């Protein structure tokens, strides 16, 4: 009886010690919060999202980025929103796009700033609520943010 009590106590102790460590890890990932905000509890599945960028960008001030979500765009089934996340940027949420069935095609191109070499993560939320992801690694030789303009 006594031993059992000791064990539960020990178990509780280790759990309480492990918990802050877990929280610290979650805080360190700059994308944890933006992903949670966008996915709203829905598990993020890999696929459907194709991110097209040059593999190597001479400077991070203006990197072309093309996003294509391979999904229908009908009133019954369409891509509702897209978010671009750059984990090494001081503000990881680069842009959010909202589409409608009238968009016809879930393809968006833009130019982004990248603060150094990183894996750009793009999430897409469909009209059925599912969330899909795609990534692209961009090697940046001269990063944005350090220099002027």
């Amino acid at each position: 009886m006594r031993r059992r009590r000791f064990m539960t106590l020990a178990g509780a102790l280790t759990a309480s010690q492990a918990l802050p460590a877990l929280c610290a890890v979650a805080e360190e990932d700059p994308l944890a919060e933006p992903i949670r905000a966008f996915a709203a509890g829905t598990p993020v599945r890999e696929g459907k999202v194709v991110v097209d960028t040059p593999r190597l960008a001479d400077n991070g001030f203006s990197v072309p980025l093309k996003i294509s979500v391979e999904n229908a765009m009908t009133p019954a089934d369409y891509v509702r929103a897209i978010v671009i996340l750059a984990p090494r940027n001081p503000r990881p949420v680069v842009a959010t796009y909202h589409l409608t069935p009238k968009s016809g095609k879930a393809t968006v191109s833009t130019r982004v700033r990248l603060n150094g070499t990183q894996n750009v993560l793009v999430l897409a939320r469909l009209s059925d609520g599912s969330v899909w992801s795609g990534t692209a690694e961009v090697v940046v030789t001269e990063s944005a943010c350090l220099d002027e303009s």
Partner: protein
Amino acid sequence: MLARVRVPREAKRGEIIEIRIAIQHRMETGFRLDNFGRPIAKNVINALVCRYNGTEVFRAEMGSGIAANPYLQFHAVAEASGEFVFEWTDDAGERGSERASITVTG
């Protein structure tokens, strides 16, 4: 704010058309300092909306991670002749707009 939009002048009904917009804007990140070492306030175009005959077809929320002179390319389904209206706002509250008309045949 200067802007250039490109919408095809003519399209067939049901055709998916390509829309491009480029706006002249510094997209100030808020991380830079001026010549006196004082921080330059963040000022980016934070919202842009595109409406086609009054119906929203595309909307963007942008941050400092978007390059200066923001450029966007997206699509829309040509449904009826009419007008595309683009409107945007920056952090300083300045607004801009641009429009383009389209003739839809068939």
